């Protein structure tokens, strides 16, 4: 049984259906990447899993338990953290305060996790007391990932970690994503940057207008002529 099972979910914004029956699976320990163009429904898949845009049909199971209709709070409590699109750090709080909020539902000691995040992103340690809004996009992305890690998630959902960030930092952030994965956290990430996203993953899905159109091992997907043409600019 996979850690995350998404079965034929539909989700809508008002009258407009964004997902027309999406299914996918993420095994424990895997990195899975979903690629697709703007508006294909990538973010909506993540938002449905984390309860921000609940699916109105189909089922989402995490570790065997159905979570389709749980609230975002209950979903975070079960071990799914969401790094939202556009980072969404709390701009006027310091780096440390942002990280503390990431652990909002935990009541135990945070020191160890704080140190761990600072190890993953030494840049954040340097800026511990700085207001998040004064940092660069790349630093804010690091903070958003670190903040999600503070909840000690078993599954980390990441929405376009490379968006709007200088290439050199994209590489560094992806190195850290690899590190987080090696430490045992399961990762589902969505990317427009197909090359970068697939390189980090074991398996991948391609989503188009609310449907999954292709899936398979990441390297095979990267070699697929259709994917090459549509997403890799070959």
């Amino acid at each position: 049984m996979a850690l995350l099972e998404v079965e034929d979910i539909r989700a809508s914004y008002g009258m407009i259906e964004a997902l027309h029956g999406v299914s996918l699976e993420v095994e424990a320990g895997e990195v899975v990447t979903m690629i697709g163009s703007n508006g294909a429904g990538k973010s909506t898949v993540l938002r449905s899993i984390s309860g921000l845009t609940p699916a109105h049909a189909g089922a989402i199971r995490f570790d065997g338990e159905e979570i389709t209709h749980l609230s975002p709070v209950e979903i975070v409590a079960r071990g799914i953290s969401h790094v939202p699109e556009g980072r969404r750090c709390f701009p006027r709080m310091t780096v440390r305060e942002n990280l503390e909020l990431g652990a909002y539902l935990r009541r135990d000691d945070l020191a160890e996790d704080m140190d761990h995040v600072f190890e993953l992103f030494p840049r954040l340690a340097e800026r511990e007391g700085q207001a998040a809004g004064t940092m660069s996009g790349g630093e804010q992305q690091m903070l958003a990932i670190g903040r999600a890690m503070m909840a000690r998630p078993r599954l980390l959902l990441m929405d376009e970690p490379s968006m709007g960030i200088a290439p050199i930092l994209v590489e560094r952030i992806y190195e850290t994503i690899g590190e987080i994965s090696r430490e045992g956290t399961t990762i589902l990430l969505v990317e427009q940057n197909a090359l970068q996203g697939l390189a980090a993953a074991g398996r991948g899905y391609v989503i188009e207008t609310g449907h999954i159109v292709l899936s398979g091992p990441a390297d095979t997907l990267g070699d697929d002529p259709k994917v090459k043409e549509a997403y890799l600019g070959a």
Partner: protein
Amino acid sequence: MSSVLERARRIDQRFLVAAAILFAVLLPFFFDSGSPFMDDAVLALAYVVMALGLNVIVGFAGLLDLGYVAFFAIGAFTMGWLGSTFYSESNGGDGIHILVTGAASNLPGIHINFLLVLVAAVVFTTIAGVIIGLPTLRLRGDYIAIVTLAFGEIIGQVAANGDQIKIGPIWDATLGKLPLIPDLGSSATLTRGKLGISPVDKIDLPFMDPFTSLNSRPWYFVALGLVLLVLFVNVRLRDSRLGRAWLALREDEVAAISMGIPTVKTKLMAYGTGAALGGMSGAFLGSFLNTVNASQFEFLFSIFILAMVILGGLGSVWGVVIGAILLSYVNSWLIPDVLNGLPGQLGLDFDLTQVSFAIFGFILVIVMILRPEGLIPERSRKQEMHGIGAGDTAGAGTDVELGEAG
């Protein structure tokens, strides 16, 4: 190095707070207990309590509430209902008396000890706060302001027309049949409209002489006690987990939800707390002003309290205290007693009290130009006003710079 400075500043701040409290405690001994200054001081302290309550809703949680007068009204009516001769037919004309001494214990009507009334006011206003809060939860920004404004107006209208709402028969037919709950008499109404419920029982505390309207010193100390209590609540809330959650919701609601912050509960806590504090102050003012009438509960009162919060600094506990004291004295002393004749002396045909809200508006405009974050700003507001973190992608630093540095 910075932690030493931080500690020094904190000690400094503690000293300031202690000095301010000492000053407040000693103040009444320098003034005649019947002087208008002392009356104004009592009023100012009651407004501080109210402004700190509104600060929880608007300052901490960022929910613009334009109907705060509703909680003043409910608190004051709790005092009026439970501490006056208004329900004179209750209990077959014998009245109900719980832990009251002095004159009130022989009068008809309901007379309940002030401390119990305070508890009842907190209970009633918290319930009202949650009821007002519920429909606003799906709304944002200006829409919250409009809905709360409407609630404030509804409560004001109910107060004004409550003399037509006969609750006696219904009460007696249902609640009056229950044990412990007395009948109110068939002519009992919800309010007394524009006439107002008056007189209202004076505060009656154990180990203290009965309060009178001639000696404002005991009133002052009760109000100061309420202020200290509410200050404690404000500071503790601000630094609590809940305080952080409010700040997070204010900054970015979607991100806050992703962190697992329960929005409904967190926002309702803000409404409930703010309402309870307003209700406490309302009950106190009902007794102190010796009347509970509909003309007290108008829209401008909500604006008056909101102006205190904005003047002092949204979300800043100490700023709000200063803002409330300043505006209260401008309203009850500076305009009517000091400057009132000024237009007349200049040959103009009006009194300054007629334009007091224009003066508040003017003060606010000046503050917004010179110091938009308020007199004693809260940290994040100050950053906001000075353009830090305007949007989620705006950053002062650049990645290019970072890339080179790394």
